[in-house]
């Protein structure tokens, strides 16, 4: 018995070392090939088109955001393939596809959940030979898709996602994120609310219970405590998709705070804000929304949103001051008959930045494209100059700080916020060594 098992052991270790020895030259041989296989490269670029997979929430609590997101993608692909919009302003882009290849795409509904998102992304990568995937409006799904991208070595231009982890401890070599992280939003917001609300305030938070909510709570409480001397007196964790916030709001009303920081997002932000008004919370406390949902202002109404401070990835009135923003907003409005929200902005600009990187790399080879993105090449976009940091793949870009207008100040129903500041990206990004990001290999 013991003899046999020892024999088995020997045979196994022999096999192992044999495998190791035989694998070694194989690796060397493949390295020596002119064109190595990385993810779907070169299989995905054999034809005259390349495939991009878009994964957005079209159902669930973030479905309104998802619909706006998708329109941004569609507009970007239309411009990349046929010219128009900002494509004409970026010298590397021809308006005849990317590297002469037409972009074809499909989209899938991720139901605001990581499971369906991963399933859709995997199908796009393995069946459709996607050269890039993008989309999301929830950090839980975005982080899951980053891991998929890294595993299959397919570039992921992360869509809507505000959690610090997206370019922090969960960062991936194959993933790039343009939305400001919770840290950036909080750092940009703090001076504005300090000026408006003063120091020594007591804040209570309504926090959706997942990566994004926790990030926003951590960063906002940190900056308001450190820079403004505020006290954090409570944190109400609530599940995503809650319909009735009454029990949370009773705790909030009871917390003794004078500032209510509402982190709920999407349809949840609308329900919680409306109910906070009904419970008298908004009469007793000033509300702050560190990251305003795309349609929150429109859905809740200016009556409630007036005086509310927050940040947004993008707000359409920037078109009045920034020429690139005007080109984007006009093109979007002409096609979809409403002012684009920030998820459309993320989708549109991310696609153009990716296309520019491919053109500069002169190949779809993901390693070369990643290196082109990591070269911190600056592009003029609707928020001014933007680029990705090599250390964590976070986009360095300005963060708009806004305040809700009085109902009487609205020039049209979409004119809900006034941009009170456009904080430069380099001032708000976290130091590279503090993010906890360790990029895996190419």
């Amino acid at each position, binding site marked *: 018995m013991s003899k046999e098992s020892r024999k088995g052991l020997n045979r196994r270790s022999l096999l192992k070392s044999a495998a190791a020895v035989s694998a070694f030259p194989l690796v060397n041989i493949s390295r020596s090939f002119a064109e190595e296989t990385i993810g779907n490269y070169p299989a995905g670029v054999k034809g005259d088109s390349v495939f991009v997979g878009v994964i957005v929430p*079209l*159902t*669930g*609590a973030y*479905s*309104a955001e*998802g*619909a706006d997101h998708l329109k941004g993608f569609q507009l970007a692909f239309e411009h990349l393939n046929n010219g128009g919009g900002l494509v004409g302003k970026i010298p590397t882009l021809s308006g005849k596809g990317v590297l002469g290849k037409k972009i074809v795409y499909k989209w899938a509904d991720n139901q605001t959940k990581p499971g369906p998102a991963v399933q859709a992304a995997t199908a796009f990568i393995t069946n459709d030979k996607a050269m890039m995937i993008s989309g999301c409006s929830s950090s839980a799904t975005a982080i899951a898709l980053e891991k998929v991208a890294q595993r299959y070595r397919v570039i992921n231009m992360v869509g809507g996602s505000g959690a610090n982890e997206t370019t922090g401890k969960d960062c991936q070599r194959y993933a790039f994120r343009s939305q400001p992280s919770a840290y950036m939003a909080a750092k940009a917001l703090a001076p504005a609310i300090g000026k408006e609300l003063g120091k020594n305030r007591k804040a209570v938070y309504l926090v959706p*219970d997942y990566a994004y909510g926790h990030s926003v709570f951590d960063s906002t409480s940190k900056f308001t405590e450190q820079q403004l001397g505020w006290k954090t007196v409570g944190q*109400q*964790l*609530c*599940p995503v*998709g*809650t*319909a*009735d916030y*009454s*029990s*949370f709001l*009773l*705790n909030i*009303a*009871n917390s003794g705070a004078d500032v209510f920081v509402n982190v709920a997002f999407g*349809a949840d932000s*609308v*329900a919680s804000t*409306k*109910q906070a008004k*009904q*419970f*008298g919370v908004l009469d007793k406390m000033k509300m702050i929304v560190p990251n305003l949902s795309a*349609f929150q202002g*429109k*859905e809740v*109404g200016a009556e409630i949103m007036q005086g509310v401070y927050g940040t947004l990835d993008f707000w359409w009135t920037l078109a009045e001051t920034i020429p690139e923003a005007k080109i984007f907003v006009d093109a979007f409005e002409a096609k979809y008959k409403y002012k684009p929200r920030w998820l459309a902005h993320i989708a549109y600009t991310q696609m153009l930045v990716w296309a520019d990187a491919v053109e500069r790399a002169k190949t779809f080879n993901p390693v070369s494209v990643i290196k082109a993105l990591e070269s911190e090449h600056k592009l003029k976009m609707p928020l001014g100059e933007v680029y990705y940091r090599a250390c964590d793949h976070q986009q360095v870009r300005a963060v708009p700080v806004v305040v809700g207008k009085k109902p009487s100040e609205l020039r049209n129903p979409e004119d809900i916020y006034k941009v009170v500041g456009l904080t430069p990206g380099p001032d708000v990004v976290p130091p590279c060594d503090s993010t906890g990001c360790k990029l895996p290999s190419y």
Partner: protein
Amino acid sequence: MNWALLWAQLFNGLTLGALLVLVAMGLTIIFGALGVINFAHGAFYMVGAYAGYVAFEATHSFVLAVVAGTLVLLLLGLVVERGLVRYYYRRPHEDQILMTFGLGIILVEAIRAYFGGISKRLPVPNWGGGAVNLGFLYYPTYRIEVLGIVAAALIVLYIVLYRTRLGLIVRAGIEDQLMVNILGINVRRTFLIVFGLGSMAAGFAGVINAPIVTVVPDMGTLVLVQSFVVVVIGGVGSFWGALVGGLIAGEIISLTAMVQPAYSEVMLFAAMAIVLILRPQGLFGVQGRQ
């Protein structure tokens, strides 16, 4: 211990529960009388809210919105029973679940296709605006009124179920369908009426709830899950079961939220599991009923 907050949460649990009772009632009547598990019930609730929203936009009357939501759902219920559900009475529960679940998806996506994913606003009626100071609590007027509205609706339902001939047949059907058939009662028509009534209750609940929650295509999903829990806790087909189950569920959500907000949903399912272990037929259920 913060007593004021405890009283506030207890009271809030009551109003939360009242709304759950309203939705669960329709579900349990249909389930009890027809033996059909209606997974489209959440979607019915949502369609009710949208019907109310459309009516409100047209008339600016909340009462008319409630009437519209209720009638549209009565009609929808009748059509669905005649066109779909009646073919499934003799088929296994799995078939019924698949069919009603599919119907729910169709309704949700049809509404989304037409109205979009952005939430619609059905404001609190004029007589429900503002908040009332209850001494221990500052509470929205409308929610207090909802307590009264739900109580009134339940009394009407109670009278229909326990004081009319129709109610007698429905309850007899819940107890023993075969015997009712043998006695020569037109079960076909009764089933139609019961399904219509159950759907109506969902529509009514949808409009009443609309000023509190947001009117979005997915609004029924969570409600469906919660009202199933209520039905399981209370016992399938039982009027009192739905009532007590709903109130228990409301209190569980509210009191857990006071201590550990993130667990309020989980505790609901924990309570359901405990009931299933100790009393599988539910608090008011009759053992051995189909």
